[in-house]
């Protein structure tokens, strides 16, 4: 579409984005509320952030969550990238339909089912539940998201680049590390970030698969939210939102810079010719 926006378009954009962002903005504002009553503005204060530092349970939960998220994101990136390669490159093989089904199903499957089924697996394996089981559960569903992200990058990848490397004497595995991986790296990094934030956010699957001593931050937030809105939770949420938002915006700015630099170079190269 190339035509300009009408007033209707602009209004719907403004209203739509207000709807998307106002709740979060209000949450952030009220995290700086001096009053304990969360809906009454009692002046600006950072006391709830200071109070967080003394809340050992919350800090513990945050630490567990970060460890789970980091570990599961790393493993999920490896498995998801391999899965994407299989989907795009391996052609037909027995059980391919089942394989792609298993990649796409977790994306739409209700979390309660994923959580329940994984818990029952860990019970059947007589596995003590805790850090490791949460990590494995998160790795499994996050790797499906990574697979989809990397796959979209691989689909746009000119396969003749790999063929050229092989043609020049480079064996397949080495070709993957020298050519394919560097080129799909932005997709792999995006996949890692997605896996990390998915794990950071997850409540349902973690609730099912965790055990004593491995309470994650969302679980902690959830148990407090059920008791009502508190300014401390507002503060925790603000920190989480700020953390993720900064990461995503920084990454997208970096990508955009790179892209516009590239476009500039391309224009210069073709300008020189013509």
């Amino acid at each position: 579409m190339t035509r300009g926006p009408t007033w209707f378009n602009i209004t719907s954009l403004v209203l739509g984005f207000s709807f998307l962002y106002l709740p979060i903005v209000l949450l952030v504002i009220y995290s700086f509320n001096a009053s304990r009553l969360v809906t009454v503005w009692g002046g600006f204060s950072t006391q709830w952030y200071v109070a967080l530092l003394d809340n050992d349970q919350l800090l513990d939960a945050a630490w567990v969550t970060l460890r789970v998220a980091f570990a599961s994101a790393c493993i999920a990136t490896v498995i998801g990238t391999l899965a994407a390669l299989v989907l795009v490159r391996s052609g037909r093989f027995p059980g391919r339909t089942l394989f792609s089904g298993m990649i796409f199903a977790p994306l739409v499957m209700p979390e309660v089912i994923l959580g329940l089924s994984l818990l029952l697996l860990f019970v059947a394996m007589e596995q003590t539940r805790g850090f490791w089981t949460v990590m494995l559960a998160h790795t499994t569903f996050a790797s499906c998201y990574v697979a989809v992200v990397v796959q979209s990058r691989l689909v746009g990848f000119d396969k003749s680049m790999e063929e050229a490397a092989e043609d020049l004497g480079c064996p397949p595995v080495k070709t993957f590390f020298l050519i394919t991986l560097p080129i799909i790296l932005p997709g792999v990094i995006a996949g890692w970030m997605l896996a990390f934030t998915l794990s950071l956010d997850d409540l349902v699957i973690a609730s099912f698969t965790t055990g004593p001593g491995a309470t994650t931050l969302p679980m902690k937030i959830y148990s407090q939210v059920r008791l009502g809105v508190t300014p401390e939770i507002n503060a925790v949420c603000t920190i989480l939102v700020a953390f993720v938002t900064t990461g995503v915006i920084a990454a997208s700015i970096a990508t955009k810079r790179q892209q516009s630099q590239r476009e500039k170079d391309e224009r210069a190269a073709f300008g020189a010719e013509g």
Partner: protein
Amino acid sequence: MDQEQNTAPTRRTLGGWLLIAVPYLWLLILFLAPFLIVLKISLSEVAVAIPPYLPTFDLAEGWAGFTESLSQLSFENYIWLTEDDLYWKSYLSSVVIAGISTILTLLLGYPIAYGMARSPQAWRPTLLMLVILPFWTSFLIRVYAWIGILKNEGLLNQLLLFLGVIDEPLVILNTNIAVYIGIVYSYLPFLVLPLYASLERLDGSLLEAAEDLGCPPWKAFWNVTLPLSLPGVIAGCFLVFIPAVGEFVIPDLLGGSNTLMIGKTLWVEFFNNRDWPVSSAVAVILLLILVIPIVLFQNQQQKMSEKNG
């Protein structure tokens, strides 16, 4: 040039098989096997034990133990699901709530996606970024943010009272309306993204051609834009509907005690009643309900990618 090589069955080395084996085995063990276990436990009896169901399958007894435990399986839990009306009401209510929410999301999401597609090229990356960003922030936090807005002494009621629109606070939190708002809010990006993608691909000269042939703009929208954006509408609706049916966090935090959704029922059955066999049966039936839209969705996606590829 010659495209025929793409359809070739690939020559595969040991490394090629290994590449397939690693993710395949991972998913078989951690995705498919758990479902089979859920299926098995849904056919078991509840017991006061650890784990709280019978029969348990003991590896030590080998094949005999396996067949022994098979013979003890029963459909009792499924019969129970039909006897207690809590369950089928939950299923029905989940589908209805998800359906209404999907329609509301579409009504809100279409103008946003359309506005994005019609906006100047320079704005689009930023707008896209603004739609994607909430997707990255925690689901739980986004739902939580609405509690402070919707509750009786919340910000929405304060505003409406201040403006004089209402005389006493509206009860929104802990009703189905709050659940609708929560689902629309949480799943809006899922609908806007595929819809925007299909609207953005739409060739502007098609509309110009329609108008050139004497079609007024609103009619051109109805006859050209809408039909061509249909794949995006369908994909977006599936992406909202399917996960919304099994939603737990939103009905639990925003809905009331009479908001019935199957995800919540399953959770309560599992964590509060500790009835693992019945919650497994609930999960199996939920999955069967969702298989239909999931398969439809996959078929549609496949058709789309074939058309584009």
